[in-house]
């Protein structure tokens, strides 16, 4: 039910209504509405009940296991929120003088340094406001690099077929042509196809390693060599950083630009559109092109300057920068949460993130295999996520991946990612993350096994799931074909 449907003409909330005639008097007559705004008219209690009830319908990490592959839905410690909301942070005005914000700038500098250390890159800018913007910044830097060398023949970006859809989209946004290369059946990228694809037209390659297939590409050093020898640069999509945190560094693999999804690996809120953060890291040759502002640390000349050591770099110091991506330096509150999380983990903790996320994924994978499920690439060790393919179930029981996903909701588990990566038929991409206990993983495994038995004995039961949720199966064909997001009180609301 929409809040508009609770609306009754003239019902208002006295405590919050403004004094009539006080505020809007100075607006010229011609700008005033002729008709009342189409807003819901409800009491305070109705508004509270409506939104509380909506929040109770949510599947969230606070209420449910959320093994959404490629999204790293891990638990974000509460103290990251509470410390990021200390009054000194909350009340700091972004336009205030740098000398008054040294504490905040020190935190941001330290976060930059920690991200550099964790990724093995030479410099980091936290200006991008989201993962997608980080991707854009990364490829824009690659472009700026080639342009600065007057190397204008480089018009192509290579993207493997298992890539996230944002990769080819980013390349196109930056004015490049996308060249797709295939993945071999063992999950690694086809090196021969890569050798054939590179040339003087190659601006770079965009890679996710571990890939979206949940395996670490063993030929990364060779790929790096092939692309670099052709004059291209390597871009690292940080989506799966959780698996290798504290273990392997993209910088050591030969990457020139990377973006980091702080909301996946560093415990900031998953946005649903924002506010997010997508810091970028670069190798030596891309440093001049980093987006601004980012924090630098001036070693004080004498004691009197000690208080003003941290400074935001701007166009003046970075003339070759790709520019600004937002008004200030990213989303301050989000970056602070990541800073606190990284400080809590420390170097040792980061290593354990990689180890436990990988252990949880491999445990769940092996147990599901024992329960009769087919694992894609089942000769490989999983990273932080793995793929179940329900091809046989779809063929023999007529119950597909979507049916399994819907039935899981009835058992109190958020569905894994379905039908991605596109190159594996009837797949579920499962990522347990390091924050789940063995008991929860066992419950999930047991639910999957139960659903498999149900699919054998009573396929209709699974095909019509879910039964326990406020919304049953949606008509996604109709939703896609007749997309209509505008509520019209006059026509849509039945009296």
């Amino acid at each position, binding site marked *: 039910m929409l809040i508009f449907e609770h609306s009754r003409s003239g019902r208002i909330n006295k405590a919050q209504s403004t004094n009539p005639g006080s505020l809007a008097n100075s607006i010229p007559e011609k700008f005033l509405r002729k008709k009342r705004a189409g807003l819901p008219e409800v009491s305070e209690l109705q508004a509270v009940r409506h939104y509380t009830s909506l929040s109770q319908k949510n599947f969230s990490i606070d209420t449910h296991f959320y093994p959404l592959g490629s999204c790293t839905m891990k638990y974000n410690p509460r103290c990251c929120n509470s410390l990021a909301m200390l009054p000194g942070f909350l009340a700091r005005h972004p336009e205030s003088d740098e000398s008054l914000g040294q504490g905040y700038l020190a935190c941001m500098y330290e976060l930059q340094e920690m991200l550099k250390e964790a990724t093995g890159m030479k410099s980091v800018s936290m200006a991008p406001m989201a993962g997608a913007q980080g991707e854009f910044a990364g490829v824009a830097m690659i472009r700026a690099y080639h342009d600065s060398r007057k190397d204008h023949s480089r018009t192509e970006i290579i993207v493997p077929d298992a890539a996230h859809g944002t990769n080819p989209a980013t390349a196109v946004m930056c004015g490049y042509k996308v060249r797709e290369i295939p993945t071999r*059946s063992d999950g690694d990228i086809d090196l021969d196809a890569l050798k054939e694809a590179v040339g003087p037209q190659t601006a770079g390659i965009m890679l996710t390693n571990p890939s979206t297939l949940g395996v670490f590409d063993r030929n990364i050093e060779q790929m790096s060599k092939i692309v670099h020898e052709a004059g291209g640069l390597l871009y690292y999509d940080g989506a799966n950083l959780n698996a290798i945190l504290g273990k392997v560094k993209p910088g050591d693999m030969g990457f020139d630009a990377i973006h980091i999804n702080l909301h996946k690996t560093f415990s900031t809120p998953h946005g649903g559109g924002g506010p997010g953060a997508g810091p970028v890291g670069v190798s030596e040759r891309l440093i001049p092109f980093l987006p601004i502002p980012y924090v630098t640390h001036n070693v004080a000349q004498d004691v009197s300057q000690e208080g003003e050591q941290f400074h935001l770099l701007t166009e003046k110091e970075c003339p070759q920068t790709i520019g600004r991506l937002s008004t200030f330096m990213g989303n301050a509150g989000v970056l602070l949460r990541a800073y606190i999380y990284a400080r809590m983990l420390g170097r040792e903790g980061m290593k354990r993130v990689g180890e436990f996320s990988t252990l949880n994924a491999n445990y769940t994978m092996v147990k599901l295999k024992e329960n009769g499920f087919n694992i894609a690439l089942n000769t490989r060790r999983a990273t932080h996520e793995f793929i179940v393919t329900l091809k046989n179930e779809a063929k023999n029981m007529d119950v597909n991946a979507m049916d399994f996903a819907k039935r899981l909701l009835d058992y109190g588990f958020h569905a894994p990612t379905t039908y991605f990566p596109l190159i594996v*038929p009837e797949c579920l991409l499962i990522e347990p993350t390091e924050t789940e206990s063995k008991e929860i993983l066992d419950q999930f495994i047991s639910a999957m096994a139960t659903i498999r038995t149900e699919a054998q004995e009573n396929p209709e039961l699974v095909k019509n799931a879910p039964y326990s949720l406020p919304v049953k199966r949606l008509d*996604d*064909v109709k939703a896609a*074909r007749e997309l209509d997001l505008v509520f019209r009180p006059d026509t849509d609301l039945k009296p």
Partner: protein
Amino acid sequence: MSDIPGDLKYTKTHEWLKILDDKTLVVGITAHAQDLLGDMVFVELPELDTSYNAGDDCAVVESVKAASDIYSPVSGEVIEINEALTDAPEIINKAPYEDGWIFKMRAEDFDEVENLLNANEYEEFCASEEH
């Protein structure tokens, strides 16, 4: 296995091609392809009077599961597009080899058509893809 008519030619990217006369071809996607993709919700047709090389992406079909490029099976010029698909993309699901055709083209070089897969080869290819 889905329906694979014997009189058509096929690509490894799951397009089918039918020879209308010595210059004209009609192109669509196979029953197997539409089955994998699921219910179609959107079709982006190729540009009329535009020439494509064999293997160029020239159209897009989008289903509830995924968006997928359609590749030109041979080199040539697009001479007719199936406008009916714009309003009713589900025709591809219902009749992939008949009313669900996507575009017609004038081939530059008919030898390219000979190099495509025949029905048996395409069936084998689909089976090998399934492992």
